[in-house]
């Protein structure tokens, strides 16, 4: 959590994230809608994928979130294309593209980072090294100590940081963001963390040595940040209770909203395979949401994209900002 949220906290409006399957925190920090997430998980007809997919592969370009696919690593070249567009349009915005330790071993990781570096693209690559790719420990995945060293193969700055310390993460990622935003090209930050639970709900993760898990549980990023806030006198029991109440409210709202949402209609199974014709807006330019553009609204539904929190749930947005200020 510290890694993905800490990294996201460093971004501005106009920046775009290309989150992967572990980046729920990044989604929410950037304004992702808890209702959309719940509808997606429950495969409702009103989910961002209209029930076509059931995982965190959601997002929309107007709100700076690129929906990913299951093939890990493949999102990195896509992030390059997004950043290439920013570069062509002379923007000062950047792209943040996280991936796991496992994904750093894929061909597209290499092709993407190299292309980004040659083209001096404004991208910050975040490597969330959580010790495992599914059941595979890092020593079976690569023969180096720090994945941040992979940046050297592309001539981009790379550093690694304690991924369970949200402040350290923000600090390191801010340097990378600064580098990317100033036109110097991409930068990479490896956040060292750990997957304390199974890869998926089905996975008991009995391949993880208990003492190793214990050790990392002690480094729990949330507890640590909480302790810090308490020590600094920012987080009082009252504030904590308030926050927890808010979060609970948000989650409850999302769950009940999703539960009340309809399942998709089987009759639409062959629909939405091809996009309709018409003018396309360049995302982020003035007037890009003018309905005359085919990509202004979700043309599958004729409604606005619904991956980002609206007023009804804006509490999370506020939430994120709160945390942000501290």
């Amino acid at each position, binding site marked *: 959590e510290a890694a993905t949220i800490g990294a996201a906290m460093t971004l501005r409006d106009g920046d775009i994230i290309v989150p992967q399957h572990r980046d729920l925190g990044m989604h929410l920090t950037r304004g992702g809608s808890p209702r959309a997430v719940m509808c997606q998980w429950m*495969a*409702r*007809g009103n989910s961002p*994928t209209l*029930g*076509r*997919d*059931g*995982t965190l592969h959601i997002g929309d370009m107007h709100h700076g979130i690129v929906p990913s*696919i*299951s*093939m*890990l*690593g*493949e999102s990195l070249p896509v992030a390059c294309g997004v950043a290439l567009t920013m570069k062509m349009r002379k923007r000062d915005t950047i792209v943040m593209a996280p991936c796991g330790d*496992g*994904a750093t*071993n*894929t*061909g597209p990781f290499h092709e993407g980072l190299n292309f980004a570096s040659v083209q001096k693209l404004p991208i910050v690559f975040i490597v969330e090294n959580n010790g495992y*790719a*599914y*059941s*595979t420990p890092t020593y*079976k*995945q*690569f023969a180096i100590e720090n994945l941040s060293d992979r940046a050297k193969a592309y001539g981009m700055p790379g550093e690694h940081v304690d991924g369970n310390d949200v402040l350290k993460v923000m600090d390191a990622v801010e340097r990378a963001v600064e580098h990317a935003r100033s036109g110097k090209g991409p930068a990479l930050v490896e956040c060292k963390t750990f997957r304390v639970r199974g890869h998926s709900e089905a996975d008991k993760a009995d*391949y993880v040595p208990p003492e190793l898990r214990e050790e990392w549980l002690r480094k729990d990023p949330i507890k640590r940040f909480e302790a810090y806030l308490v020590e600094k006198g920012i987080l009082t029991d009252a504030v904590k209770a308030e926050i927890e109440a808010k979060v609970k409210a948000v989650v409850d709202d999302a769950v009940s909203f999703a539960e009340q949402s309809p*399942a*998709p*209609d*089987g*009759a*639409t*199974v*062959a*629909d*939405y*395979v091809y996009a309709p014709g018409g003018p396309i807006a360049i995302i982020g330019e003035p007037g890009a949401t003018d309905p005359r553009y085919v990509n202004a609204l979700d043309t599958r539904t004729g409604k606005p994209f619904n991956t980002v929190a609206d007023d009804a749930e804006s509490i999370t947005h506020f939430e994120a900002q709160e945390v942000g200020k501290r």
Partner: protein
Amino acid sequence: MTAITYLEAIGQAMREEMRRDESVFLLGEDVGTYGGAFKVNVGLLEEFGAERVIDTPMAEAAIIGSAVGAAIMGMRPIAEMQFIDFITCGFDQIVNMASKFYWRSGIPAPMVIRGPSGGGVKGGPFHSLSPEAWFFHVPGIKVVVPSTAYDAKGLLKAAIRDNNPVLYLEHKLLYRMPELREELPSEDYVVPIGEAIIRRPGEDMTILTYGAMVHQSLKAARTLEEQDDMSVEVLDLRSLVPLDREAITESVKRTNKVLIVHEDTLTGGVGAELSAILAEDLFEYLDGPIMRVAAPDAPFPYAPPLEEAFLPNAGKILVAARKLAAY
């Protein structure tokens, strides 16, 4: 001796072949310690060690490419795709490296690429693939699709012993299906690649199918017998490359009506070729149009109502069969 599942049959085949032949080994993501995403390989690491049951980085081109390299050395690697969907990430190694190796050099590349394919388990767009059509169109690789525990074991053994690249498509929906539990022969056996089998003899119509759809077709055939007293033959192709043309021809010459059923999407699917072969070779024997039941031309959807609407099933086969019968 107890009845085992389709999944256990696959594990057995690998274990027995690895015992029989030290050149056989397994590599892929999480195949060892974890035993594979569906635990197909449980016990193999313990019995054969990390040198012959290799947990690899997440890198399909490396997995398939290494298998090719070992194969041309005379080894018999089994490259596992965690889900067959990820085969698209190693596509070039299959179509340009493995499939053309013998043809251009005289050096055989005996290897198996296998992994969980197919839908019906809420896998969504990236974990439900039926990839056969792409490779059906690639000369130099064989493609087999077992529909029973007996075939799962026999075809995998045949694939491992074959001197060519073989794509072995196991259907994840069948992995633990209780109805498919079977007592398998205690002695060694193979199911020869290239031989279809009549799962149900019939006179009025032939259903050409393979994989999980064999069971849906049989279900439909039974209903047609009971309710329409029609006698429908169900031919399980088992091997798509090479195709058992004799078996297909023999059956269609008898029944004169053909319904083709597959789980993969319709346009450009394997069914298209089956239909084209018949429309060219058996034109005089056809008493009706050649009909196909397949998934619609869309990506594979996740939500249950969509997956239900997407996948062919006995009900949809029934409708098509009755239409064809009425012709």
